[in-house]
């Protein structure tokens, strides 16, 4: 039985230079090559790109409306969005090189950038995570400061509770990422 090309499990060592990846068979027709490109490159990366762009636009729109509520959750959405952004930025030179770079030199440069970015994927994520940790420790310091202020505030036995201070304390204690 003739199986579709993308189920043919045709791994090969590309030109003996860079890496092993699923690729179409030697002597594959143009339609088969296009099918491979569609199933393994365009669909997965395209869907991810669309999801990330729409989510980012949606989040930006919501952020304007619910800015105070988001701040209260303690979730740093801007920083979290860096993870998908890193993934998508890695893929962009590939699109430029493959589909827009008619000039051989442009294509080579774009694909070299893509190569460097995809190889440094773990390093880039570590940088993003490190920046998040720094922000988190800053928030933690604020929280500790707020806790100290709050406990001294409570020990003063004041009858007139400042509601704003309580809200601020509540926000800081919910701080997570």
């Amino acid at each position, binding site marked *: 039985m003739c199986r579709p090309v*993308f*189920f*043919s*499990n*045709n*791994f*090969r*060592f*590309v*030109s003996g*230079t*860079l*890496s*092993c*990846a*699923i*690729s179409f068979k030697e002597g594959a027709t143009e339609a088969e090559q296009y099918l491979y490109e569609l*199933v*393994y490159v365009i669909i*997965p*990366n395209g869907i*991810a790109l669309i*999801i*990330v762009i729409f*989510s*980012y636009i*949606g*989040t930006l729109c*919501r952020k304007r409306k*619910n800015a105070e*509520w*988001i701040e209260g959750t303690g*979730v740093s*959405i801007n920083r*979290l*969005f860096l*993870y*998908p952004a*890193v*993934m998508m930025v890695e893929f962009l030179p*590939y699109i430029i090189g493959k589909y827009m770079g008619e000039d*051989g030199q442009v*294509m*080579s440069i774009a*694909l*070299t950038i*893509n*190569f460097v970015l*995809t*190889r*440094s*994927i*773990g*390093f*880039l*994520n*570590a940088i993003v*995570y490190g920046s998040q940790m720094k922000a988190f420790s800053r928030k933690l310091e604020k929280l500790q400061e707020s806790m100290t202020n709050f406990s001294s505030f409570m020990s003063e036995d004041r009858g007139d509770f400042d509601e704003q201070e309580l809200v601020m304390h509540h926000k800081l204690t919910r701080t*997570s*990422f």
Partner: protein
Amino acid sequence: MVWYVFESFGQITHLLGCIIVPLSFLGCLWTCYFCLKRRIMNTFLKYILGLTLANLFYTVANIMSLFRTGDLDSRCKIEGVIRESSWILSLIFASCIAILCYKSSACDGSSFNHSRFFRASLTVGFLVCSVLVSG
């Protein structure tokens, strides 16, 4: 993804790979360590850990491509499977982080079941990987 035009850049890319890939591997290990060190693990952190693990496997495939000794055919199949599945998992986890950010920005975000979403995305991720990589 397959790079065809790099044949002329073989030496340069190999040299670049030798510098970048170990750094990337260390970065993945560092992120994994600090993720696992945390006592409370929310859904965001689970996704970050998942993404880092997928990246770690991708880096392992990159390390494998730096050394070309032994039985090339079987080694190539292993590398190909690791590379494709980890790349697709990375894409899925990155998309899920984006969706979760969007859901978390809504005032009624509490109605969104994070753990269920995490389980569903894991199932979908492994299904997609096994379909694309199986043969």
